[in-house]
Every structure is written in C-alpha cells, then in structure tokens.
C-alpha cells in the first residue's frame, strides 16, 4: 500500500532520469517501427510532385536551434525531394539562427546529390520577420524585394532566378516553422494568388493546423518529427525523422506509463481514506 501511495508523488528527478534514459537508449539502439503515411504527409509529397519544372519553390525557414530536432529533418526531407525532382528552390530564412542552420543542411544535401548553388538552389539570405509587410512586396516583384542573396550577390545574376519575376513563377511554398507564420503566407500569398503552400510545423502545433488543411488552404502537412519520418520513408531514405520517431515513441510510452502509475496511486490513496471522501 505504501508503494502504491508513493506512486502518487514520484520525485520529478526520477522522471527526468527515466526520460533521459529512454531517449538515449532509443537513439543509440533504434528499433525498426512501422510508420504509416497519413493523408496530410501524402499531401506534401503530391504538392512537390505537382510543381511544374518552369517554376521555383520557396523554402521558408522560421525555426532556430530550439526546434531544429523537428524542423531540421523536415527541411532536409523537403529539400531532398525538390532536388530529386530537379525543382529549383530558394531558401528564405526569417530567423537569425535558422538562416545558418538551413543553409548548412542545403549545402550538405546538395553536395551529396551533386547539385550546384545558384543553378539548382539559392539562399535569399536572412530577412527580418515582418512577413505581413514583406510578403505582399515579394509577391509583386521577387528580385526587387530580395535583391541580394546571402553572399551579397545580385539574385538576378543567379542562373536559377532567370525568368523568376513574381509569385506566379513560384510553384510551391514550404513553410517550415515552430511559430504562427503560416497565417501570413495564407493571408498574403495563398489567399490572394492561390500559390500552393505546404506546412511543416512542430508536433505541438499540429492540432490547430487541421483548420487550414481542411479548408484547402494548405496542400499538406508534415506533423513534427513523425511527419518528417513518414516523408523520409516515402522518399526511401533513413534520416533523423525515422530514427528520432522511435525515441519519441519511447518517450510517449513513458509519459503514458507515468500517468497510469499516478492514477493507480490516486485510486490507492482514495481507498485508504474513504471516510473523507477520497481524493488527495
């Protein structure tokens, strides 16, 4: 009985230790688990497949090191798919750390897939996150709004930017973000010019994203790390999305077990004090 009641108040440090151990073990010795592809993830895949070759894609980066564990694999998966299809894309970072992190991912993937900067992809460089004001300008004239890439070179001179004038030359926007920037993309771009948008949020933001998904305002969504894992599976490569999803599974199971233990403790304590109506 004492043990059962002790379950009601497990020391937080024990829980922290268990979580740490679960993640380390699951990352070190990953267990192959199935990932079924959801409708939302398939929507992203189909949207990338539907981009015409004469249009470019914009990869909007709003994440920083804080959420790179989730947004990093999403970014890599989308970039790989774009490279695989031969769709030119531009990175548009709105975060001061994300600018460097996303560029590093693009450099790594492009080197691996034999792609060239300026021809297959480019980095428009960090822009302050006044999305609501900058996006209407971007839609009307991309080279005039962006002007220079991250190296300070004129974007008009990049081979991949030839013929790219307005938002009508953009076949897809991928908003990879842990914050509320999707609203700006929908209201200033998709709602006005009907440019397709796909969304890659962190897992915690997923419940609210079903609203624009259902309204057809976004073509698809990668829900956090599992979303990246599913996308990796569709692209036939193993990245952190799949490896990390195992650790996430372990953590969720741990949380569920702890909640059950807490409730067992609660029931035990109620049984012991029926005279005062139970409860703690």
């Amino acid at each position, binding site marked *: 009985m004492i043990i059962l009641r002790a379950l009601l108040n497990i020391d937080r440090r024990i829980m922290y230790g268990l979580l740490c151990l679960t993640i380390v073990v699951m990352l070190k010795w990953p267990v192959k688990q199935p990932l079924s592809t959801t409708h939302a993830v398939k929507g992203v895949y189909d949207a990338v497949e539907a981009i015409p070759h004469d249009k470019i894609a914009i990869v909007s980066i709003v994440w920083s090191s804080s959420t790179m564990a989730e947004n990093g694999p999403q970014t890599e998966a989308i970039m790989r798919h774009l490279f695989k299809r031969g769709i030119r894309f531009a990175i548009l970072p709105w975060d001061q750390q994300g600018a460097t992190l996303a560029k590093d991912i693009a450099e790594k993937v492009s080197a691996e897939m034999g792609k060239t900067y300026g021809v297959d992809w480019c980095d428009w*460089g*960090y822009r*302050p996150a006044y999305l*609501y004001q900058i996006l209407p300008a971007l839609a009307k004239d991309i080279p005039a709004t962006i002007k220079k890439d991250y190296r300070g070179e004129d974007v008009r001179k990049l081979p991949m930017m030839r013929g790219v004038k307005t938002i009508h030359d953009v076949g897809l926007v991928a908003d990879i973000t842990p914050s509320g920037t999707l609203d700006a993309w929908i*209201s200033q771009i998709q709602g006005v010019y009907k440019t397709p948008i796909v969304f890659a949020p962190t897992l915690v933001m997923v419940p609210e994203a079903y609203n624009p998904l259902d309204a*057809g305002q976004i073509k698809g969504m990668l829900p956090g790390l599992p979303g990246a894992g599913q996308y990796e599976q569709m692209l036939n490569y193993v990245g952190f999305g799949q490896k990390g999803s195992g650790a996430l599974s372990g953590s969720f199971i741990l949380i569920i077990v702890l909640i059950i233990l807490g409730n067992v403790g609660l029931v035990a304590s109620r049984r012991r004090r029926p005279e005062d109506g139970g409860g703690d």
Partner: protein
Amino acid sequence: MDAFLQRYSLQIIVWLGALSTLAIFSILYKENAFYRLFEHIFIGLATGQGIFMTVSQVLHPLWWKRMTAEGQWYWVFAFLAGMMFYFVYSRKYAWISRIIFGAFMGFTAGLTFKAFATQYVPQIAASFKPLGGPPSSARPDVTAMTVVYAVSFLVFLLPLVWAAVLGSKAARLKREAGIR
C-alpha cells in the same frame, strides 16, 4: 593558430556541444552556477548572432551598399526613420518613437483586414458542410463563392465598426460624466 583550428575544430565543436548540453541539463537537478554561466553565454551568443545576421544580410547589402555604392542617397531617410524607434529611451521625447511605432502598427492593422478576407472567410465557407453530404474532395470551388465571402465579411465587419464607434462614444460619455 590557423592550422590548429582547421585540424581540431570538429573535436572542439563536439566537446563544447557536450559541455553546453550538460550545463543546461544540470538545472533539472537543481539551480547551479554552471547553468547560470552557460545561460548567459547563450543569451550573449544569440544576441551577437542576431546583430551579425541583421548587419551582414540586411543593413549592409540592402541599405548601406545601396546608399553608398549604388548612389541611392535617399536611403538616408530609412536610417532617420529607424532612429526614431530609439526615442523610446528618452522620457522627454518618447512620443516621437510613437510616430514610427504607430506607422508599423497601422501597417499591421491594415493588413489584418486583408488577412481576414483572404484567410478566415474561406475557412468560414469551409465550415458550411452538408450534414452527411459529399466528401471533402467534392467541396464547391471556393473562388465561386465570392458573394458569400463578401456578405460574410460585411456581416462580421459592420457590427464591429458599430461596436467600436459605440464603445468610444460610451467611453467619452463616461469621461465627461467623470465616471472612473
């Protein structure tokens, strides 16, 4: 130094990364000086990175170079407008900063109207689904529902204008009557 950094930078990155991770996780056990030190280093690095990125990717290429190398002298007014923000630190002239803050708030407020029409009105339309009707893929084309959007928008907008006007009138009457 050059050769040392080139040779060992990866090892340094790995060790520093491990040290930083442990320092931050140490707070989970209890508050300690090691955590505080690395917390301050993190704030310093994030601030420095912010300044570096803003200067190297926006202010230098898009403002300074355009003004000096490309001869577009009128970009000096962007500097003057930007400096207006800093009057916020002066008690006497803080109201000057409110001009530029007001402009930015005005821009955002103006864009909110556009956002309501382009973002939420389609969602309102998507909410009207026939009970037990066709699947979502058979939804009517949203572009064909412009009239519905316009009406919905006005239905939402008009009471708001009315409420805003009434609200300010009530506040004025309250003020005049000396009610607090």
